[in-house]
């Protein structure tokens, strides 16, 4: 997984031994402190609810710096989706990278068409973010495309510039 945003660029590999948790390695360039932070990550699925038409998830995520254990974060994230609609939220506390930061974000999305398995799937989304460093809330459109194991998310906001997220699931 590769992320590039106004706050950081990072590349992240993770392995999921079973549905309850995943282990990962992250290598991040922090754009605020301009430093590099390799870290180990852990994601735990707190709760999942499947229905015929929907899925809901709640995750706890944490990570700790491999060079300096004072660099760490913990986060709570959730999502609910059907084939047509998507909503998600995330709250994250980061510490040690020269600053502490609390971030909140949420997304809502709609699929303009319902593709079959293996088709190109498209989501039109709206994302809103706020962190306590600049204490300003920004909201912007986001395009998510995925096909097979590949996913790309792209968004643009004049204050944060491009926000790109690439993921491939093996």
């Amino acid at each position, binding site marked *: 997984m590769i992320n590039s945003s106004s706050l950081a660029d990072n590349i992240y590999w993770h392995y999921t031994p079973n549905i309850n948790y995943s282990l990962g390695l992250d290598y991040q360039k922090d754009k605020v402190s301009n430093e590099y932070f390799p870290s180990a990550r852990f994601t735990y699925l707190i709760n999942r609810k*499947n229905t015929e038409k929907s*899925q809901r998830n709640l995750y706890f995520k944490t990570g700790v710096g491999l060079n300096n254990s004072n660099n760490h974060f913990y986060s709570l994230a959730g999502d609910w989706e059907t084939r047509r609609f998507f909503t998600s939220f995330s709250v994250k506390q980061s510490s040690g990278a020269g600053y502490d930061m609390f971030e909140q974000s949420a997304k809502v999305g709609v699929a303009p068409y319902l593709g079959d398995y293996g088709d190109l799937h498209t989501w039109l989304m709206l994302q809103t973010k706020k962190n306590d460093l600049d204490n300003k809330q920004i909201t912007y459109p986001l395009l998510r495309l995925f096909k097979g194991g590949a996913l790309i998310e792209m968004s643009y906001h004049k204050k944060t510039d491009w926000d790109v997220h690439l993921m491939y*699931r093996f």
Partner: protein
Amino acid sequence: MKNSFLLGLLTLSTAIYAQHHDMDSMHSHEGHIHNEMVDGKNLDVDAQRFDTFMIGIDNNTIAVVSVQGMVCDFCARGIEKTFSKDQRVSKIDVDLASGKVLLAFSGADDIDSADIRKKILNNGLNTTDIQIVGK
């Protein structure tokens, strides 16, 4: 002359209709087992999709698996990956719209429903029903 032409046209159109009707009959009855009763219930599948799936696997046993939570390609991809590792599974079809997974088992007399449920669960999804259609 005119009558002969009309008679010829009528004969030809009847022959074409008969041939077309025969083809329809074949399409409706040959190899179509989506109307089968399974455990006293009608087979709960999209008929056209099922028929397409059955092409080339006449001697297979089919498991029609109803899955909860299969709302996106990413969820379904894990299921396909898991069952494709099973050498007895000769064909897989995932239908996101209906939440059904079709599994064709070649040479399988007994299909282990518990194993199917376990594999679906290991992918984070739930099985609500499995209908087995015999050879």
